[in-house]
């Protein structure tokens, strides 16, 4: 028994050593994602009870944390933190693009801006789904990842603006017509609902729960993926870096076992909370 275990451990170590690892996300990017998903979970957990305040679970949750006052205070706290993270991100983009004159921010393979290849990839992906063509060769960011990014970006602006308009309604009333004060609640709650439904179903499945990544893609937590994953998921980027001779520059240490376990705990907790909130949301409709 002991021999077998030792042998298994050795072979695992051997494989790990053999396999090269590459950096996908920088520490700043991972921190941004961590801030985004923790505040988003907080906003969803406190926003849903307000949206469905007539339901039993909303009232139970509200009374559990000290009523509506506590819920709203927490909602606002998460909102402020997320707003700051968003503003820091926007400032970062602007500094890189306009102060440091970094190339490829608004266009090119490393940019989040959609291009013609994304359109072709979308149709190509559908053809592959139906068995009508080969799997598209994705570059650094695939079209659905770009969609996720811009959905959040748009959501931040729309939900953020409508939220602050409600928070500081008498102030916003100086610029907005009266009916807009009615509209901001509709906008805030519908867009929030869209974000919640999208993240807790589509994003979870696309990124973590589909067979290729099941049960969880840890790269957003560790920042590092194996060469095999890199090659399979984004062959275009891999080949491009290889051709440009920049592949070695992206080499990284394999994530430590504590790092993987920590990522798993955080990731599964977030997914579990998200799925619970998804079930509660759907229970309000069905």
């Amino acid at each position, binding site marked *: 028994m002991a021999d077998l275990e030792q042998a298994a451990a050795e072979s695992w170590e051997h494989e790990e050593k053999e396999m090269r690892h590459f950096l996908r996300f920088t520490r700043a990017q991972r921190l941004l994602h961590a801030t985004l998903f923790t505040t988003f979970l907080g906003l969803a957990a406190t926003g849903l*009870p*307000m*949206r469905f*305040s*007539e339901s039993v679970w*909303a*009232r139970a949750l*509200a*009374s559990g944390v*000290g*009523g*509506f*006052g*506590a*819920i*709203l205070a927490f909602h606002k706290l998460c909102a402020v933190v997320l707003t700051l993270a968003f503003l820091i991100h926007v400032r970062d983009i602007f500094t890189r693009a306009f102060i440091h004159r970094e190339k490829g921010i608004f266009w090119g393979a490393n940019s989040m801006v959609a291009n013609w290849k994304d359109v072709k990839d979308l149709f190509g*992906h*559908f053809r*592959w*789904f*139906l*068995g009508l063509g080969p799997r598209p060769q994705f570059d650094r960011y695939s079209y*659905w990842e770009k969609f996720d990014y811009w*959905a959040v970006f748009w959501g931040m602006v729309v939900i953020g603006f409508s939220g602050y308009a*409600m928070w500081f*309604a*008498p*102030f916003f*009333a*100086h610029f*907005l*017509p*009266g*009916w*807009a*004060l*009615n*509209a901001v*609640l*509709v*906008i805030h709650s*519908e*867009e929030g*609902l*869209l974000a919640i*439904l*999208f993240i807790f*179903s*589509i994003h979870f*499945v*696309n990124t973590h729960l*589909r*067979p*290729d990544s099941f049960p969880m893609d840890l790269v957003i937590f560790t920042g590092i993926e194996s060469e095999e994953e890199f090659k399979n998921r984004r062959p275009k980027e891999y080949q491009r870096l290889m051709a440009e001779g920049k592949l070695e520059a992206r080499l990284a240490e394999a994530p430590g076992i504590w790092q993987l376990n920590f990522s798993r705990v955080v990731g599964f907790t977030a997914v579990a909370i998200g799925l619970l909130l998804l079930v509660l949301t759907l229970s309000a409709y069905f």
Partner: protein
Amino acid sequence: MTGGCLLDRSTPAANPAKEHRHDAAKWIGACMKTASSIKLALGALLAVAAPSLALAQTDCLACHGDMTLQDASGHSVGVEAHTFAASLHGSLQCTACHTTIKEYPHPDKVTPVECQNCHADQASGLADSVHAKASEHPCISCHGNAHAIFPKDDPRSAVYPLNIPRTCGSCHSDAALAKKYGLANVYSFYMDSIHGFALSREGLLVAANCQSCHGSHHILRHTNPLSSTYKANIPKTCGSCHAGIAAGYAFGVHGKAVASGNLKAPVCTDCHTAHAILQPTEAAFRMQSTPICGSCHQDKLSTYRDTFHSQLGGLGGYVQTARCWDCHGAHGILPASDPRSPVNQANLVKTCGRCHPGANLSFVQYQPHANARDRKLNPALYFVRLFMNLLLIGTLTFFVIHTILWLIRSRYNQIKTRSAEGGKNG
């Protein structure tokens, strides 16, 4: 109060609660009635005085002073001499009430005491009332031990204001009795109400007790138009203490509707309930009140439900959010077209500003009852909602299809690859 005799002698001075419950004319009427009753009682006293000379209290108490004395059927016939002497009837001879006893020894069986010989007004009131058919002796059911009856401003009296709920509750908190007569089990509701608290915790004599609303002897069913608890009479009944509120109510749309005979309009008890009345600023009342207004104003409730006011308020713990009466007023509710209404266009800045400091003319264009489903009434809101819904449904539909196809294809590929690898991990 139906002008009792000795019992009511000192009432107006000793019980200030009663004072403002009566206008001057009524009060004078009551005094005259009281005076006539005293005369009547004195008459009865004189009438029985002559034969009673033969049989003094001390003669009766020679036997009945023994508290262990029982009649043939085992009922105690002992009389606590000291208590009786101190009681309201202590100066009367025994035969004043036990009129059939003329001499000693008296027959084993004696006829029950007829209180109405002196208390005719109360007896006639009782005869029409819900308690007319009480099988027990109707007087002592409430007034307690016949030989220990005290004025109702005496704390020893069973009908002392602070003792009344317990006295009435001795029957009206009995679940079996409540079921038998189809009564609401109201005692616990009352005791937990603001009136019950004031009475039981603070010992507040002016707090409404059972008889403040229902009367004492002439208690009628609330379905009887003569009853003080008949719907149309409720504003007057509650107004006998809450005069200011009643005046405001009479001024508002609900009061006017009820006064004109429209009994669909709410009276005090429709919003505040009859027995479980809460302090209106209390969280529990603020939580329960909106659906009460909404039970008639259903369209307004449903549009209110769509707003942030309701979404906030529904969760509890944060009850400051606007409920119906925070904007519309509670008692003297007026239509928005009335310049005196707090929801009149001219008053909105002030009304909204009570919760929203800095509210301006643009801010108050907010519609607290906007209907995003009504294209004609709120076109801008209607199209905003339509756009948001289409965005939501469109995005989700596209990605649900995308994801499902992807899942199927990935799983298919996975199985194919594994079987190609000879079933490894398969």
